[in-house]
């Protein structure tokens, strides 16, 4: 075996040159002849019956080539729960719900045409809050919920607004609670936020005169786009072709379908013409998808030693108007509700509630940042109340090999070491309990865990083939929307076949007609699933190369090895360069053997089992877990409430670092995105009009260069994953999960106030501090002693 050359090395991005030169084409960069532009008519009401849609005037307007609206497209679609039509048919469910769309020669003509579409609405009472949504007698967002088609492992409740409910029942929660020496209860909230990919959503479609549908789109899952489009329009998969060029960020928001059905609906109305639907930044915020809101109530019972014995988790998810991916977030949050901890007795309910807000969907972490916001603060809260160091308290309760998750899955030896991650980050920011303390400066820690949330049969496949000069082409359909999939694919292929990584070309902008199947690029599953498929395909390539070379050299294949772009025979010192083998080998007498070398292979996670429908117990509900932790250091401005995050240290057990530069990038990027949701992001919906009031980058701020902590560190533990490619496991989402909770815990450490509702804005901190100081003054006044200097003490629940 030769030493590793590609995997583990800081290989430059294989798509990098295209991206730094401006050569890389994203969907909106593609040129189409006589492209039609689209304006979407969107509901101005959060909840209303649609009495009628009249499009005749719009259809006659200058430049208008096609108009499409609700009742023409009655079929429902949805990744797990089919609850959505292309356009609203009988009712609109959020401000922005598409009602009709107009395609015209210019964007201005499309907008003018859209203004002529007349819609009659009968406003209905909207609901915006989950508590309202689950109350008896609440107006129903989906009265037809009971008639929708749904996968067996999602459980909507007909006649209510509950689109999924997952229950965790482990051990004897009630008994354990009674036996607990102390019990703590807290409520935490997370608002809806938006992904804010720098590239807004855009899709282009054409239906040709033969009826074949072709789509170019900024999406994370070309095959799922195809699959769901077929469901929307009753098409055969054979007649729909989806291309995904470079994608300018997605973070979950481009999973599944978004604008594609609107583009196809219009394209069907003007065969032969390309139709482009593009949202502007304003629409991106409320008319695509957002992250779900969460209200989490946690009850924790501990024994005398500080071990958690009873844990209750009640999650109410604000799913918005449609279930989308949200119903599966509800599920994932349920079976991960114990976080990185071992809780022997658990009562968990994760409930998804429809409301008349923008559509909740997948967002980096798939519910995990939200539940960790609650759980990791609760753990801190309990530790502080018990007077136990928060690091020690976590170690005492941490999951690890041989311990059981909330679903009763006993973790294997290869599960990953959250304990090591905790120790490393605690050491990195100096969380020693005996440390010197400065006023209004604090340190906090939070753990993270996540498994891929996907159907048990979510598969990936790859094709590998050679060009004449032995350039190795790797065809994948996982999407590299920044995380570096194309590069790690090249590394795996180069490593497995011992060829220079520079000779590998990853064809990473898939075309469903030509590229191998892949379920979706979500769930931090791609390096793992694509990687495994590549290693399998490489094995077959190797077999073919060796067989041909063996014949050429007249030696048994077993004596041959791939070595630095050749097939080599160590015993005789002879070798054949791949370029002479990949298209077949020709002997001096002219006869040839072998043939173009190529292989395809796939990977499907093995041995996954459904959850028990009543208790969610399951010995192997997910393919793998990735554990990690972050610790942060903050300083707080006592008078303004401004929190400055000075340092964030992250550590994850990733199994095997495939590319140090890329994984650091994932880590820093996730931390800063987490800092955004932690300290500044919230999509604010006016609860009288239902409108998103801060739907612009002027009003909705994401972190800029100047908001980044001065020090970011990233460390990795490498406990190999048995079924991971070269031991690797997923990391893309995990980096964003613990940051807000770690900041909140550091804030508490700094000044004794706890913020329960994201985001941690300066004004909230200022109010909490003022409240706390007032309380202290009152207590001091009552005791007849002067107010104590502010110090870390007491929580504001």
């Amino acid at each position, binding site marked *: 075996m030769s030493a590793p050359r590609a995997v583990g090395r800081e290989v*430059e*991005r294989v*798509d990098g*040159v*295209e*991206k*730094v*030169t*401006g050569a*890389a*084409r*994203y969907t909106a*960069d593609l*040129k189409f002849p006589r492209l039609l532009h689209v304006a979407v008519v969107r509901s101005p009401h959060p909840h209303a019956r649609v009495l009628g849609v009249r499009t005749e005037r719009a259809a006659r307007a200058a430049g208008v080539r096609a108009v499409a609206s609700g009742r023409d497209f009655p079929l429902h679609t949805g990744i797990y729960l089919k609850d959505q039509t292309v356009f609203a048919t009988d009712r609109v469910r959020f401000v922005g719900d598409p009602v009709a769309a107009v395609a015209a020669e210019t964007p201005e003509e499309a907008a003018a045409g859209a203004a002529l579409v007349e819609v009659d609405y009968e406003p209905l009472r909207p609901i915006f809050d989950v508590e309202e949504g689950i109350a008896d007698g609440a107006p129903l967002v989906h009265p037809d919920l009971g008639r929708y088609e749904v996968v067996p492992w999602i459980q909507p409740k007909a006649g209510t607004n509950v689109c999924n409910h997952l229950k965790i029942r482990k051990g004897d929660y009630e008994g354990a609670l009674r036996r607990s020496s102390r019990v703590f209860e807290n409520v935490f909230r997370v608002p809806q936020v938006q*992904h804010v*990919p*720098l*590239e807004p959503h855009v899709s282009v479609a054409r239906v040709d005169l033969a009826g074949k549908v072709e789509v170019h789109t900024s999406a994370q899952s070309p095959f799922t786009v195809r699959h769901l489009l077929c469901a929307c329009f009753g098409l055969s998969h054979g007649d729909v072709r989806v291309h995904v060029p*470079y994608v*300018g*960020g997605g*973070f979950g928001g481009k999973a599944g379908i978004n604008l594609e059905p609107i583009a196809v609906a219009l394209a069907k109305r003007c065969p032969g013409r390309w139709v482009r639907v593009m949202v*502007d*930044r304003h629409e991106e915020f409320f008319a695509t998808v957002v992250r779900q809101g969460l209200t989490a109530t946690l009850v924790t019972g501990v024994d005398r030693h500080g071990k958690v014995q009873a844990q209750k988790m009640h999650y109410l998810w604000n799913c918005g108007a449609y279930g989308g991916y949200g119903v599966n977030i509800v599920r994932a949050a349920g079976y991960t509700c114990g976080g990185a901890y071992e809780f022997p007795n658990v009562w968990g309910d994760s409930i998804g509630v429809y409301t008349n807000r923008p559509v909740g969907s997948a967002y980096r972490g798939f519910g995990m940042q939200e539940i960790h916001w609650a759980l990791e603060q609760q753990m801190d809260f309990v530790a502080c109340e018990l007077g136990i160091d928060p690091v020690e308290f976590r170690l005492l309760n941490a999951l690890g090999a041989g311990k059981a998750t909330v679903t009763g899955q006993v973790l294997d030896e290869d599960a990953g070491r959250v304990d090591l991650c905790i120790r490393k980050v605690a050491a990195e920011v100096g969380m020693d309990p005996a440390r010197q303390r400065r006023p209004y400066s604090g340190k906090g820690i939070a753990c993270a865990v996540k498994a891929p949330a996907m159907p048990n049969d979510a598969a990936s496949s790859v094709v590998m083939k050679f060009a004449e*000069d*032995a350039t190795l082409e790797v065809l994948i359909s996982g999407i590299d*929307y*920044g995380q*570096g999939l194309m590069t790690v694919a090249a590394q795996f292929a180069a490593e497995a076949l011992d060829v*220079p990584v*520079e*000779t590998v070309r990853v064809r990473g902008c898939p075309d469903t007609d030509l590229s191998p199947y892949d379920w979706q690029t979500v769930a931090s599953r791609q390096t793992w699933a694509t990687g495994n498929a590549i290693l399998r395909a490489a094995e077959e390539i190797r077999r073919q190369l060796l067989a041909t070379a063996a014949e050429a050299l*007249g030696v048994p294949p077993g004596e041959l090895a791939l070595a*630095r*772009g*050749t097939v080599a025979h160590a015993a005789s010192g*002879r*070798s*054949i*360069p*791949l*370029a*002479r083998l990949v298209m077949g080998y020709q002997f001096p007498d002219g006869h040839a053997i072998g043939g173009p070398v190529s292989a395809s292979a796939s990977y499907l996670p093995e041995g996954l089992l459904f959850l028990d429908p009543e208790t969610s117990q399951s010995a192997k509900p997910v393919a793998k877990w990735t554990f990690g932790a972050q610790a942060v250091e903050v300083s707080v401005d006592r008078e303004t409430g401004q929190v400055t995050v000075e340092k964030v240290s992250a550590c994850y057990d990733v199994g095997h670092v495939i590319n140090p*530069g*890329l994984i*650091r*990038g994932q*880590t*820093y*990027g996730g*931390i*800063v995105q987490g800092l955004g949701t932690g300290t500044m992001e919230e999509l604010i919906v006016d609860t009288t009009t239902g409108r998103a009031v801060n739907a*612009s*980058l*002027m009003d909705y701020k*994401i*972190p800029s*260069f*100047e908001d*980044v902590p001065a020090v970011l560190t990233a460390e990795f533990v490498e406990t190999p994953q048995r079924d991971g490619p070269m031991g690797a496991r997923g990391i893309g989402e995990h980096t964003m999960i613990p940051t807000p909770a770690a900041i909140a815990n550091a804030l508490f450490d700094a000044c004794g106030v706890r913020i329960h509702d994201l985001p941690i804005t300066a004004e909230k901190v200022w109010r909490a501090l003022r409240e706390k100081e007032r309380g202290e003054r009152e207590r001091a006044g009552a005791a007849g002693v002067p107010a104590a200097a502010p110090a870390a003490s007491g929580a504001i629940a």
Partner: protein
Amino acid sequence: MRKTITLEVNGASETAEVEVGTTLLRLLRDGLDLTGTKEGCNEGECGSCMVLLDGRPVNACLVLAVEADGARVTTVEGLSRDGLLHPLQRAFLAHAAVQCGFCTPGMIVSAVALLRDDPDPSEDAVRRALSGNLCRCTGYRQIVDAVRAAAAALRAGEGAPEPPRRAETRPTALPVREEVPA
């Protein structure tokens, strides 16, 4: 109303007829097919549309094409020459400062302007100068490193554009010892 304008884009003179309301960004992307300059917000907030206008970094979404009549425009496409990369482009690759790449052209253009004004920017100076360029992927850390590394390279006289590394290593140049049986 339509107007005819002439401007120099990446060294070439271009004449175009544009609507008054057309932004420089639209002209570059739709009219001249220079799609390296991106549209992320159309409100001056994200910086993905950054170009140099008479040498100054500007948000092309906030400039009307007619305002650029007679001006000199440099886009990301104008930074690499004859397949040779600008030192900033090289540094972005070497420091893993690129992820989805959508912000990258704008970042690099802003950084070109910064390094011309300040050949040795501190970390803070980089953050300040680039704070009009948003990136949702990288967390900015590696971009700061890339810009400072490029500054050092330029100061050391390594300013000459370099070829993209991938193109250097052609598969045909594999280090092999060929020995074929007779």
